[in-house]
């Protein structure tokens, strides 16, 4: 018996050590190195010196960095709301008694499997040529020039493309949530006069809150890290109005000679992500407990 116990323990240890080493090598070590670079003036090549907290102090007075945080947070918030409202409506529709349910579900999920970069390129063309041409035809003054070339409107383009793909994902999750609601809940509710909006607010929604929190966490995290859509649609422009944090770190850190400075930015970004994720999880688990 003890011989077997030892064999089991040894096997588990032999499995864990190489895999853990791999993880540390390509996740933990680069993370620590990134944090270390944030205290240097490295340009990504050549020699560099330690500069202490200089980068972090500069970070908070850098308007370009500030702008990218504002843009990214605005985009994440608005897109999360738009996506969740639309996918909840869509999920209710797709979960009702309709014909060709399987076909509709399959079709509405399609955007999610396509690569964000190519989707971005396709929508880039749509915003640059199709929308202005449509506006010309219908005489809508405000849309005659591409929204992607307007510093105040370009973020809407990014938002639409992010939403187009994310709605597919969130809808599928809401549908699986709606399927957990037993039919007799509605029947009992119907006797009490709960129909339509009332039924949704008091019966359906409380029962699918776990799925709502999954979608919230998924949305916020993905949108805060937005990158492919920015490259494909605006490259951060016009006038740096759509520079997401990831894009700024990539652009100025990898090729702009700000390796050290952008490492500090990445460290702050990492902390922001952790804080938001932990807060969201705390919030949603406390919500679930109330039920």
């Amino acid at each position: 018996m003890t011989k077997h116990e030892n064999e089991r323990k040894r096997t588990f240890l032999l499995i864990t050590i190489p895999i853990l080493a791999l993880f540390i090598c390509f996740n933990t070590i680069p993370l620590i190195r990134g944090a270390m670079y944030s205290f240097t003036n490295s340009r990504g090549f050549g020699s560099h010196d330690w500069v202490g907290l200089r980068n972090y102090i500069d970070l908070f007075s850098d308007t370009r960095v500030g702008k990218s945080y504002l843009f990214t947070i605005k985009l994440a918030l608005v897109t999360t709301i738009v996506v969740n409202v639309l996918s909840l409506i869509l999920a209710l529709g797709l979960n009702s008694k309709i014909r060709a349910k399987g076909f509709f579900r399959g079709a509405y999920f399609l955007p999610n499997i396509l690569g964000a970069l190519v989707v971005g390129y396709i929508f880039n063309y749509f915003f640059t040529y199709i929308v202005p041409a449509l506006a010309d035809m219908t005489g809508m003054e405000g849309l005659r020039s591409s929204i992607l070339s307007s510093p105040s409107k370009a973020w809407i383009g990014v938002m639409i493309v992010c939403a187009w793909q994310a709605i597919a994902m969130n809808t599928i999750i809401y549908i699986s949530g709606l399927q957990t609601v037993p039919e007799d809940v509605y029947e009992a509710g119907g006797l009490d006069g709960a129909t339509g909006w009332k039924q949704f607010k008091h019966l359906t929604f409380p029962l699918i809150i776990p799925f709502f929190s999954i979608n919230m966490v998924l949305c916020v995290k993905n949108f805060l890290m937005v990158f492919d859509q920015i490259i494909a649609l605006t490259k951060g422009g016009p006038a740096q109005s759509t520079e997401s944090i990831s894009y700024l770190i990539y652009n100025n850190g990898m090729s702009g000679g700000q390796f050290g400075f952008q490492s500090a930015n990445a460290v702050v970004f990492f902390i922001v992500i952790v804080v938001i994720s932990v807060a969201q999880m705390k919030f949603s688990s406390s919500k679930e407990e109330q039920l």
Partner: protein
Amino acid sequence: MKQTSTVGKSNKTVMVLLILGLSTIIFPLYMTVVIAFKQPSEMTNSISGILSLPKVWSLQNFREAMEVTDFWNSLKNSLLISGLTVGLSILIHSLMGYTLGRNKSSKFYNFVYLFIVSGMFVPFAILMMPLAKQTAEMGLANWVGVILLYVVFYMPMNIMLYSGYLTNIPLALEEAARVDGASTWLTYWKIIFPIMKPMHATVAVITALAVWNDVMTPLIIMAGSSENTLPLAQLNFQSQFGTNYNLAFASYLLSLIPILVFYVICQKQILNGVVNGAVK
């Protein structure tokens, strides 16, 4: 799918709305197909010029796009990277998920579990610059390095899925094998690994989709290697020949076709996999 024969009035409204809503998905795809087949001379600045059907359905744009983007080579790289990543993920992550899932009472293994799973919070943005340096130093600035990185990046998520699934598999199965004198290692591959098949499918789907469409990792790691993945080829193509839209759209369509075919064939598995991955 349950379907009732009595489709009421309100459901007809829902149907109409759902069909209308589909246009938001069909239109961009229609636009892509139409432009991909046209010649630049057929494109005018009016809506009808852009969206009308092409006069001739010629494959010329596709032939040219394949040449410019080195399509077959990029496709080969994408398939190789996705395939190997999925295979390695299933083998390595399930093994690690098993080890950590079966040792929940051990402080050490619990710490390892939390340590790896918390890797989910690490944004790629903080890793990319050190990783670009590190992979170059290690001679891994190529597709091998990209695969290794994927195996590490998807480890937190997949380990969580596997060790969660393991709680449904009774220990008694392993104990029976032990009585027969089988080692832990053999018991795992002979008994536990096959039982976790539904989870392998979920892991395969979510890992494959994420890897297939990923731009950032190959962009940063393979930048100097002159090799492309399919998305990376589109990015490089854009910066060189960005203004010939017909050629560009032919290239976009080519890059979307493999995943569309995959989706049509395995739609059910993909939908199940994605939902399981997110909800569990």
